[in-house]
């Protein structure tokens, strides 16, 4: 049953990602991105990262996706909807992506990975909080400054006459 759920999540994630990449209508791409991000949050749950799954849903689905939808709405014009790809560019891009995908798959399948099964933890939130407040205190503070800078920068950049 759990295995079935896992494969359902995997197939939903990849199918939605194909819609994101292939759809000509940007709104369809955004809806596909919604399902992809939810599927990735599901994969995080299978990876025993419950806190990260919550963060993924809140930040990506609740924040970044809404931001991208605003971007689509604010830059939406009839003439800019169907920006067509040239066939050559598309096939060359597909070729490069396929070569990289097959190379990575070959590498992953042929590497003798050493991994341990591990024990499923009760919750990871406590450990993450402890690590952030001890070992990763400086990156944590730098991240807050980065977010402040991004906030001010985005506000200044998106004014009509900066």
């Amino acid at each position: 049953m759990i295995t079935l759920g896992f494969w359902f999540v995997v197939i939903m994630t990849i199918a939605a990602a194909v819609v994101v990449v292939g759809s000509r209508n940007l709104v369809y791409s955004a809806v596909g991105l919604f399902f992809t991000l939810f599927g990735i949050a599901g994969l995080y749950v299978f990876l025993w990262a419950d806190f990260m799954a919550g963060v993924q849903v809140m930040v990506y689905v609740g924040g970044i996706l809404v931001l991208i939808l605003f971007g689509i709405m604010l830059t939406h014009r009839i003439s800019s909807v169907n920006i067509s790809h040239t066939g050559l560019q598309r096939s060359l891009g597909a070729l490069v992506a396929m070569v990289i995908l097959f190379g990575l798959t070959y590498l992953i399948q042929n590497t003798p990975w050493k991994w341990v099964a591990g024990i499923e933890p009760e919750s990871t939130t406590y450990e993450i909080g402890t690590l952030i407040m001890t070992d990763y205190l400086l990156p944590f503070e730098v991240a807050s400054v980065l977010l402040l800078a991004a906030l001010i920068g985005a506000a200044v950049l998106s004014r009509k006459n900066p």
Partner: protein
Amino acid sequence: MDQLQTYLIVAAILFSLGLFAVMTRRNAVAVLMGIELILNAANINFLAFARFGGMNISGQVFSLFVIVMAAAEAAVALAIVINIFNNFKSINIDEVNQLSR
């Protein structure tokens, strides 16, 4: 589902799709969506190695920082895209070859 390789291959597929979007899409917002896919693929790898490396929480903290960076990047990038649209009346990134006009 208890295999490291499965997660790595899912992440590789997502990475290739994101790379394809970055290389071929001409709409700047669609390129941004491709970048989000690539960042998420990297995050899946971090968490997979964290779990199969003996439940090492440091990997999860690192993917948390990746998400923070992705949020900042999305905000600034969309502000730039909106600015480009106001200046050029188009977000076809093939046409945008000047910083201002």
